[in-house]
């Protein structure tokens, strides 16, 4: 994982173990631990509203990491990620309600179930690539959406289905404050899972398939297996994210998991940085906070004398939507490699200051 060739003075590595850490330096690791510790205290410090935002970041972030493993690391494409997310949500609620499986087990089981479904829809990937594959995965989106609307036994049809909150040893995580810890744990767990995946055998195989599939095959990598597996792992993540979403809201309806959601996931990972675990999280944070920031911007505008012009006030909602689009376009033009790349550049700038390299 660590790719920095420049390391701070005094940070020597004397064993292969030290050379193969998730975080590039000890300082970064310590910062991450401090950040997580601070987050643990967050429910006592910040407004519940921010907790909901964080929970949103958590379940979207988990699903987006899955998509990044598929798109960024393995070089496939999927336009059905939103549907897989939805499938995980319904599957978890369904297993809980129909079979009485405790929610704690339902969430990973939903992940595995979604993995199976994702692999079925990923089958074309062993044959087709690029735009053609995008269209083939679009089929997954529409078939699953239709399935949610019609399969009453599974999703409750148009009425939707209700999902119980997560409970562990009799304690129900049904408030924002308590669910926050579930979300934090899931996020950290799944991101460590992702980091470890990428620094072990399968992760390298994924990147090898992306970078040069012919020589990957010569190196003993089964192409079809890994193309399919990347669909599986990505759907697994989507399923876990979806299940968390379901048990957080307590209610799942079929309307939410549209193509728009799939595109949003793609936008997150492109903005954050394809092929970067850390970038995925950045992209998700960006996409979750952007509407909030623009919202408050709109609020500020209303307070100024612009707020007296009726046309502006009426149009503010649209301006917000357009601004989101504009920001994404600007990002793609000026930082096509994503926020992770920009972050690395900023870091290098400070590290080498006042020299440019």
């Amino acid at each position, binding site marked *: 994982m660590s790719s920095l*060739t420049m390391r701070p003075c005094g940070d020597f590595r004397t064993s*292969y173990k030290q050379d193969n850490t998730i975080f590039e330096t000890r300082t970064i690791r310590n910062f991450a631990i401090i950040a997580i510790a601070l987050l643990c205290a967050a429910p006592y410090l910040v407004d519940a509203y921010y907790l909901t935002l964080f929970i949103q970041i958590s379940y979207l972030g988990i699903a987006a990491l899955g998509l990044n493993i598929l798109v960024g690391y393995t070089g496939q494409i999927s336009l059905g990620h939103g549907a897989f997310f939805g499938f995980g949500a319904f599957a978890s609620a369904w297993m809980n309600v129909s079979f009485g499986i405790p929610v704690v087990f339902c969430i990973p089981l939903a992940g595995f179930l979604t993995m199976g479904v994702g692999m079925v829809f990923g089958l074309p990937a062993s044959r087709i690539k690029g735009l053609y594959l995008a269209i083939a995965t679009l089929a997954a989106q529409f078939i699953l959406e239709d399935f949610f609307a019609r399969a009453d036994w599974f999703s409750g049809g148009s009425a939707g289905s209700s999902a119980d909150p997560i409970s562990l040893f009799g304690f129900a995580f049904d408030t924002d404050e308590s669910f926050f810890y579930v979300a934090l744990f899931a996020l950290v767990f799944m991101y460590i899972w992702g980091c*470890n995946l990428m620094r072990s*055998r399968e992760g390298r195989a994924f990147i*090898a398939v992306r970078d040069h599939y012919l020589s990957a*095959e*010569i*190196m*003993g990598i089964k192409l079809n297996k890994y193309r399919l*597996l990347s669909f599986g792992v990505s759907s697994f993540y989507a399923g876990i994210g979806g299940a968390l979403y379901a048990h957080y809201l307590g209610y799942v309806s079929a309307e939410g998991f549209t193509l728009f959601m799939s595109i949003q996931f793609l936008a997150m990972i492109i903005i954050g940085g394809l092929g970067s675990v850390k970038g995925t999280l950045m992209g998700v944070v960006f996409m979750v906070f952007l509407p909030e920031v623009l919202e408050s911007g709109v609020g500020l505008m209303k307070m100024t004398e612009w707020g007296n012009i009726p046309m502006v006030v009426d149009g503010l909602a649209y301006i917000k939507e357009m601004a989101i689009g504009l920001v994404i376009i600007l990002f793609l033009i000026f930082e096509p490699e994503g926020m992770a790349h920009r972050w690395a550049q900023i870091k290098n700038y400070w590290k080498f200051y006042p020299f440019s390299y």
Partner: protein
Amino acid sequence: MTSSILNIEQISLAFGGVKALTDVSFSVKKGSVFSIIGPNGAGKTSMLNCISGRYQPNSGSITFDGKNVTNLRPNDRADLGMGRTFQNLALFGHMSVLDNIMVGRHHLLKNNWLTGPLYWASGAQKEELEHRRKVEEVIDFLEISHIRKSIAGTLSYGLRKRVELARAMALNPKLILLDEPMAGMNLEEKEDMARYILDLNEEFGITVVMIEHDMGVVMDISHEVMVLDFGKKLICGLPEEVMADPYVKRAYLGLEESEEVSAEQQTTLEEVS
């Protein structure tokens, strides 16, 4: 008498009307350096692609280490111990050199998508580190330790060739196929590469099949040389024998005008007789 590790029998390969290979047969002795030479378009790379599994020959059979591998997928051949490098660099450009070489250990590693992420608990870490040690041996051997953390796509041509060789060596191969390992290198790099090929052959006992255009190198380091032309085997034998062949002499070594004429006459004479 050493036994042969690779047996090619009557291989034919055609792309539509173009016959890339016609009834080529040869065998490579275990532990030898075997070179394939021939003009451009002679079918050398097609031959290598048949051996490594990129192409399925239309007829004929390939036996590797006592196993018929004619219809095996390339990745299964890697499991059996066949490594190769490519003529046009085929590294994983966005990976570090180290990871590139670690990919070579793929078929020897056992952790999967469930045990790999449970890094510390499942023993994946231990396994990774063990194989890292093996990879470092290869890195030391090929003297690329200074670039092990560099991104493969940013390296110079000569170094990339060397990393490719390292990746193939990391497979623990019994047979290594090299497609023009010295193309586009300067003299110094060529000498280094020749040394590595000899060393890996002698120290590790890896059989080498290579395609190379530099006749000096080919004649110096190979135990056996085969000449292909228009998809047919012209001659196969010791370097001296091949060198003595008038056709090869004319095509590769370049003769004086007068000699060339006489060489031509000699060939016609041979054909007549």
